[in-house]
């Protein structure tokens, strides 16, 4: 393959994943958290596609498409939650939404 080797793609994917993880851990707005979650999923996807190209096995791309579908579903449900929370006039702040505390 011309251009950067598989390692470069993997490092990039790792960084993307790390940035997304940071976002999930630091931000308080659930919408931003969901966005960061998308970043993490995309990082993983990149790694999958890179390996698929490396081993010339289409299964990696199939997996990537499945991940995309799952990410879409998860965002759908997550946003539904956000909408429901908003309708109840609760603050959109993950630190304040702690009714499940023990």
């Amino acid at each position, binding site marked *: 393959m011309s251009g950067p080797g598989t390692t470069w793609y993997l490092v990039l994917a790792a960084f993307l994943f790390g940035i997304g*993880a940071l976002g*999930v*851990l*630091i931000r*308080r707005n*659930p919408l931003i*958290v969901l966005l960061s979650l998308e970043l993490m999923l995309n990082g993983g996807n990149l790694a999958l596609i890179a390996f698929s190209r490396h081993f010339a096995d289409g299964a990696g791309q199939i997996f990537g498409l499945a991940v995309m579908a799952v990410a879409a579903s998860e965002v759908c449900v997550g946003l539904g939650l956000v909408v429901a929370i908003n309708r109840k006039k609760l603050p959109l702040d*993950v*630190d304040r*939404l*702690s*009714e*499940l*505390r*023990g």
Partner: protein
Amino acid sequence: MTAGSWLCLLSPLAATIVILLGGTRLTRRAAAWISTASVFVAFGGAVWAFFGVHAQHVIQNYSCIDFGLRCQAPGELTTAWTWLASGNFHVGLQLLVDPLSTVMMLIVSGVGGLIVLYSIGYMDGDPEERRYFAYIAFFVFSMLMLVEGGNLLMLLVGWGLVGLSSYLLIGFWHERTSAVRAAKKAFVMNAFGDATMALALFILIAHYHSLSFGVLGGSGLSTSTANWVALGLLGGAVAKSAQIPLQTWLPDAMEGPTPVSALIHAATMVTAGVYLIARTHAIFEQARTIELIAAGIGALTLLVAGLIALVQTDIKRVIAYSTMSQIGYMFLGAGVGAYSSGMFHLMTHAFFKALLFMTAGLAIHALSGEQDIRKMRGLGKVMPFTKWCFLAGALALVGIPPFSGFFSKDSIVAATAALGTWYGWVFWLCGIAGALLTGLYTFRLWFLVFPGEPSAFVAEHHHKHGRWGEGPWTMLVPVGVLAVLATVGGWLQWSPLWHPFTKWLQYAAPTLAAAEPSNTLEYVTSAATVLAGVAGIALAWAIYAEKRVAIPQLPAVQRLLENKFYFDAAYDRLFYAPASALSVALRREIEEPVILQGGPDLGQTTLDAGGVVRRIQTGLLRTYVFFLAAGAAALVLAFLIAK
């Protein structure tokens, strides 16, 4: 023959079960009569078994003696089923019907039947009469199992069950703390004996893999092992028969009802030790030292008990110590090897001792429960039948001919001298001294209670019972029967002249040659014991009736005797106090803080731990994610390191 033995054994058990299941549906009278009838049926079974063995015995005698054929001990071993099978060790539910067991069966069921009949009158009106009759039928069953047991394990089962029955019956009036305490004391001391017996049986199992009576005659044991086995068996016998040093429970056992004292603690259970030695004589003969120790224990006990009986003021306690003393005689006889003499004394003793207890019971009943002999003077005037029956029993006890005690006691004493050794002569002297003591304490009792003018207490408290004035027929008939037996029962055997009893037992428990006294020795001994007995009676008459001789004032001796040679105090200090202190300490240190608090503490700790863990559930999303990330990082690190 064997059917008779099964009938004998199971009849009282059936009565127990019926009474227990019937409960309050049976009237008290019905329960009493069921119990009595079952014991008489058992007696019938015993007679049947006896005639069966007799038939075999006659044939044996014929063939053994006249034709010199190989002798096989008469009797039959009957097995119901194999009870215990472990490796090559098998024990069956077996009954043995042989001359020795039939003698015991007849005594237990015969005298037992009379006593149970007596207790119908004695226990009349007691609120828990049914329980009493269930227990006493159970006791008869247990004792029969003990004597009919076809192997050592069945014997041990019976042994334990009679201990249980004794406990239940001593503590029958369980509202009385003294009765409960006495029951516990009896049971614990008996349990000690049970333990030593079990250890002896373990040794036998280890060597022979069998507990049949045949192994006792085996030659596979070294002398020291045989000594241990015999010692274990002796421990059980000493505990059960209330010999020194395990004798302290018997006087306390008088807390039970008088028929119980008569049956268990005079006629049958306490004689089980003697039966044991006779039955297991083969191993005792291999451990001759232990057997002689048994004789020594018997000699010591007969003296000590006789001395203590001199200062007792409770009528039942005097008779209890007398029992202890007479069993000492039986141990002496069995210990030197004169088993049939010991067993014969067992039989006559059952007659006259039960008689004495039962007449004492008549007196106690008439005086509404009073047992202090110092208050009872002159009872003979208002209760003549009791007086004469008691006299018959007393004379039999002292051993005056022609009463039964004379025939049995003297052969024992003569056998000790026949040994020829120094200790044989010591035992002989003990026996004669014992006869003097017996005369003294027995007639002290007689002269204090029966002759003379009624005391104020008697005049005030005595009231007539029943049609004949002294008690219901259920109480008077057995007393009368036993009075007759106490008088004529000894005529069965007088060793110098005729001895069918010894011949009867010759296959089951043959007398050792060393213990066969010559006829001269027999006559001399008889004369000596009779003289000693008469001397004792005369002394008692002089001191207590005529008041010509004052009681010697020896305060130290008096205290020694009144405190029963300080056995009770010593055992209290040695065993009871430390155990009691230990249990109190254990309760304070372990039971309360650890066991009782353990549960609540555990619960509290769990709650506290839960409270700590609960803090992790912050409800905040970011905390959870943080833990996720940190955990994942740690895991990956671990994997990297592992690789």
